[in-house]
């Protein structure tokens, strides 16, 4: 075959294939009227500020609210209990005069999430508004993300929750990984996340969730005006959960 012929045939085939692929999208999408997904870009970037100076020692209102809202397993059995939000006590052994401190730990919704980078089926991903969540329909339970997360925020479902705490929200079946979703289902409806609401109801208001890109939001002002720290900033994951008084 001549060189020119080969190039002609190859190019023609490529063009025809592209045209077919382009047409196929319309052919298959036309079944579902008016429901073709458009990529929404709201320009939002959700983040969280936790004011540890306000947080009441021993209070677990936010943890309970989170687990009830999202049907997270919390039967008290350590083998399969899952924590989307947990309170740990830390102590600096080198300077004991600082005393013990209670810190809330959860998924940091990293701007460069390692969990999403390692997921082989793109079940974990970053939404357009910066929330990192798992598509549990797609997760194959390989647990790569559990290992990749530097904050131990991911947990694996060894068992499905049996009780329905919140009947409007799904549970997860056994064999998928999960973590805090920043209550995406509530933020989409312009409601505050369950932990924020619970903390407000206790009268503390130590947790604030909002849009980091909006300079007028409460969270942006807090990040601007207070000394905030993030966990393991040196890793370059760019976490979006900020702590005051860590």
């Amino acid at each position, binding site marked *: 075959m001549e060189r020119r012929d080969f190039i002609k045939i190859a190019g023609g085939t490529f063009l025809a294939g592209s045209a077919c692929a382009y047409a196929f999208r319309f052919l298959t999408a036309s*079944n*579902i009227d008016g*429901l*073709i*997904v*458009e*990529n*929404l870009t709201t320009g939002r970037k959700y983040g969280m500020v936790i004011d540890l100076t306000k947080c009441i020692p021993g209070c677990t209102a936010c943890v309970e609210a989170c687990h009830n809202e999202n049907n997270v397993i919390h039967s008290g059995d350590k083998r399969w209990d899952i924590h989307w939000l947990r309170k740990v006590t830390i102590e600096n052994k080198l300077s004991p005069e600082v005393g013990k401190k209670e810190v809330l730990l959860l998924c940091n919704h990293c701007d460069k999430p390692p969990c999403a980078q390692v997921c082989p089926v793109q079940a974990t*991903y970053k*939404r*357009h*508004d910066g*929330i990192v*969540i798992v*598509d*549990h*329909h797609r997760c194959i339970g390989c647990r790569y993300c559990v290992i990749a997360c530097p904050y131990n925020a991911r947990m694996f479902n060894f068992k*499905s929750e049996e009780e*329905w705490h919140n*009947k*409007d929200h*799904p*549970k*997860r*079946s056994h064999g998928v990984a999960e973590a805090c979703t920043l209550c*995406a*289902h509530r*933020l*989409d*409806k312009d409601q505050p996340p369950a932990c924020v609401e619970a903390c407000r109801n206790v009268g503390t208001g130590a947790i604030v969730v909002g849009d980091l890109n909006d300079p007028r939001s409460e969270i942006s002002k807090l990040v601007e005006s207070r000394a905030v720290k993030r966990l393991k900033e040196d890793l370059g994951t760019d976490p979006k959960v900020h702590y005051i008084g860590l």
Partner: protein
Amino acid sequence: MFDLNKIKEKAYLIAALAAVVVILIPIGYSIVTNLFAGPPQPRPFLEMPDEKYKECVRETEFMRQHHWELLRTIREEVVRYGKRTDININKCRECHVSREGFCNRCHNSVNLYPDCFGCHYYPEPSEMAEKMRKSGDKAILFGQSIERLPDLSGE
């Protein structure tokens, strides 16, 4: 000793026979099974909601064929893009009181076991019976009423 041409001829003959057999087996199989299949399976009996719930989210004909595509599209929109609307998987339970009597009848008859409601909530039949008793709905529950679906089997 060996006549190469004769061997070749035989080989071609065997190949041709094999090809005919390979083509004929599936055709014959379908003819024979059709002969002995008996009458077609009856349409599964579906328990429909009360008459006051007239409209589904789309026309009945569309829903019958494409409900799974609709659900899948909505799922993609909600999970990936956070576009939550009124129409979601929790809406089915507002009218279709019995999952056993509606979804599962068809799914079981075609040996299909989607597990949507392993994770999403669908009320227990007793809960739905209670709800119907309160609202005075006369939907079919547990096969207590007549079938209202038009017969679409073509006969």
